[in-house]
């Protein structure tokens, strides 16, 4: 298991580096961030390599058709997560997942947006694969959170890590899974990004995860990420216990890196990080 801990640690460090690169003088360094994203991907692969081997005891596959392994496991994880959340584990876990998802999306998005902003011509939104975290939230009525069978029709780009992250709780987004929706959320007609290439993140605003909706681009800001890091700096259980307050993007799970549980929930659903990172 040590290698998993190590891989997890490396992922956290990597995300921290990516985050910090946004505020470095001289702009984002493409080369360094590319290398960091490669490390992130390697670590993730190692981390997950045994994950599926051990965790797919899959007793709770819901709808096989729509459920990827990741989702199933993720559900398992959620349910089995230490009841730090309290009594209503289902609900809290769902919420936390939602929270995790959106913030992570935001985090990724902010990284990418910042990078892209700093890169050359403003990229068209088609360069991004923004999982509209908010969208998926919207798709799910809060009460349906537990209904893990609800899968947004075309929610998440399969191979995009943000999506994976975004749909941590709901989407069949195991990275390995042939998720039905391999197109970008945009293609589902919900992308808020069309035509909004590089928006400067507004520092400090931490939009509630559930309402992130289409306007993810506006919400990709360092404030989210730093909150993420802060939250995770304390511990993941802190996130779970904060029921409604999960607007604290615990997201980008890796960012601050504490909380194995978070990782275990999130990671299976992460698609290649590198692909997201490289949207410079």
């Amino acid at each position, binding site marked *: 298991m040590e290698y998993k801990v190590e891989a997890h640690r490396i992922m956290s460090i990597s995300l921290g580096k990516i985050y910090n690169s946004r505020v470095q003088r001289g702009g984002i360094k*493409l080369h*360094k961030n590319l290398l960091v994203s490669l490390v992130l991907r390697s670590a993730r692969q190692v981390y997950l390599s045994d994950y599926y081997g051990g965790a797919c005891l899959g007793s709770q596959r819901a709808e096989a058709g729509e459920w990827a392994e990741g989702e199933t496991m993720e559900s398992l994880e959620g349910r089995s997560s230490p009841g730090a959340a309290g009594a209503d584990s289902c609900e809290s876990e769902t919420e936390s997942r939602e929270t995790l998802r959106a913030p992570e999306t935001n985090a990724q998005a902010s990284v990418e947006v910042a990078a892209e902003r700093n890169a050359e011509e403003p990229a068209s939104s088609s*360069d991004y*694969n923004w999982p509209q975290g908010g969208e998926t939230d919207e798709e799910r009525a809060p009460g349906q959170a537990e209904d893990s069978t609800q899968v947004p029709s075309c929610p998440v780009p399969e191979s995009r890590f943000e999506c994976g992250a975004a749909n941590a709780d709901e989407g069949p987004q195991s990275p390995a899974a042939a998720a039905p929706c391999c197109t970008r959320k945009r293609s589902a007609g919900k992308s808020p990004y069309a035509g909004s290439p590089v928006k400067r993140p507004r520092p400090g605003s931490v939009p509630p995860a559930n309402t992130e909706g289409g306007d993810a681009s506006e919400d990709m800001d360092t404030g989210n990420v730093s909150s993420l890091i802060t939250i995770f700096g304390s511990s993941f259980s802190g996130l779970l216990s904060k029921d409604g307050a999960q607007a604290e993007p615990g997201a980008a799970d890796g960012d601050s890196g504490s909380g194995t549980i978070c990782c275990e929930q999130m990671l299976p659903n992460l698609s290649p990080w590198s692909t997201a990172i490289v949207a410079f």
Partner: protein
Amino acid sequence: MTLSSDIISTVEFNQTGELLATGDKGGRVVIFQREPESKNEPYCQGEYNVYSTFQSHEPEFDYLKSLEIEEKINKIRWLPQQNAAHFLLSTNDKTIKLWKVSERDKRPEGYNLKDEEGRMKDLSTVTSLQVPVLKPMDLMVEVSARRIFANGHTYHVNSISVNSDCETYMSADDLRINLWHLGITDRSFNIVDIKPANMEELTEVITAAEFHPHHCNLFVYSSSKGSLRLCDMRASALCDKHAKLFEEPEDPNNRSFFSEIISSISDVKFSHSGRYLLTRDYLTTKVWDLNMENKPIETYQVHDYLRSKLCSLYENDCIFDKFECAWNGSDSVIMTGAYNNFFRMFDRNTKRDVTLEASRESSKPRAVLKPRRVCAGGKRRKDDISVDSLDFTKKILHTAWHPAENIIAIAATNNLYIFQDKVNSEMH
């Protein structure tokens, strides 16, 4: 206290070795000139003294992208000298500048209308005409910016290289290489573009590029994946297809999380002969023969004891340090820097290597550099440094070797060390 703006970021001798230029993080360039040999001590080569200092680049702000552009000088390259003046190119992340360095040691005196201070004379006092004559004056070195090559790069410029035709030069950033004419600033030709249509598919970037020393149509560029591409500009306008690809298969035994990072090439240099290429990645330096693409002909371990510490080096960002490498004048010895202010030299013929330290203690005039050793465990000799006591903040990234003699310039953070090998200078 070390000001970060004083950190030396590039070192380069000119083609004769008479001048040595350094650039720093603060955007300044300092040029040293070698004093002529003293008549009193004919065997004592001259020392380098400051010749000129000027501010090459200033910090800028790209308002459109809300991006600050660092003034740090990434590279300096001298142009071959064609007249009394010296020309050099200096670049930061975005803008390349051509500087003219000239001397003025005479000035005209005896103007008819102006007096010595430049004030207009009272015309009534002028009764005859005189021809101004040139009189000696204290040497003054003047530096002026002759060309500014701006707006050519979206990404960060990492290399510049002057072509052997002395008319063109190239500049490389992470994804593109541009060809410029030294006299034309408002346009450049893009000769390499590895930017993918979809940036999410990006897998490698350009890390260094250099023209062949003799063939003006050939150049090489290195990538973050550890490969080298030799391109021929005669083949097509856009040299996306390489003429040769130099790549060594990865050793599966050494695979780790950081394999990709440590295989990224940080510097590439043609040998003076033009026959070989020298590359540096994080742990090794390699010599490639242009005629053999599938592997280097020589591989030298610079600090293999760091291989087990890659995770820590990743955490503290040291793994991203970009070390440069250098050939000596006869291409028989290669040199590169390491940590703890150590630098290494490898003799390609004898296969001997040496580790030396650039420090104040070792740099007293006439002091002989003592070889150092890093002990990676096992028996430790006296004066060995253990791996754990290496100072990773003291890194020698930039080194240069005099084109003809055994004189080396070592940049250690904000200090420049110049070492001369007087004993062996006749042997090479």
